């Protein structure tokens, strides 16, 4: 029972991919953090991604955890404007 079901793993993977795309587009995720889905499996660059999530959580007035919690995912899934929140 401690082993996650395949559907849970897939959902988690989808969430991270959505987060990667979102942070890339709206929070100027550096190139070094690209390919996050594979890096997370290797526990590499986690702090960089986490910092971007924190930046986004701060912008939206969410609890700053650096984690992909449900409130953060909820914001990422909302329809929105395509202009970055961190201006280029």
């Amino acid at each position, binding site marked *: 029972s401690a082993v996650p079901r395949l559907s849970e793993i897939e959902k988690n993977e989808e969430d991270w991919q959505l987060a990667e795309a979102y942070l890339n587009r*709206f929070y100027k995720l550096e190139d070094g953090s690209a390919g996050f889905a594979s890096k997370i499996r290797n526990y590499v660059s986690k702090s960089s991604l986490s910092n971007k999530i924190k930046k986004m959580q701060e*912008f*939206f*007035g969410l609890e700053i955890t650096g984690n992909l919690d449900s409130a953060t995912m909820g*914001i990422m899934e*909302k*329809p*929105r*404007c*395509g*202009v*970055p*929140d961190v*201006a*280029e």
Partner: protein
Amino acid sequence: YNHFPGTIKWKKNKITYRILNYTPDLSSTDVDTAIRKAFKIWSDITPLKFRRILNGEADIMISFGAREHGDNYPFDGADGILAHAFPPAAGIGGDTHFDEDETWTMGSNGYNLFLVAAHEFGHALGLAHSRDPGALMFPSYTFIKTKYFRLSQDDVNGIQALYGRSKSI
């Protein structure tokens, strides 16, 4: 409120706009009305004047397009990203694009064109996204009845910091 880095703004108060094409979701009259009203909310509180032109290069070129639509910032199909606009500058600056894969509406059964256009024109005039959830310039879409729409104080402060107040207020 936030401005773009360098506090980019138009160096003039008379701004032209041109509607390049229309969405099949609405009549052209409805699109014209939504766009005109969206500009009016900004001109009501600043010295800015907006004039529509039918030919040639306007400061703010308005169009509907889907997926990759010529500016290297592709849309993403239905939902997700609804529209985007470029900050004030020559050329593509100020141009405003709406995702044609959305369902555009004058009411609430889809995305309200007036509300989205008003937000995007804020960018076209120099406002970046606000952290104030009650501001028009907050990044996420929220429907409110357009009859009751008014800019938040945050939006008013942001645009008046760039262009000053309307002389008629």
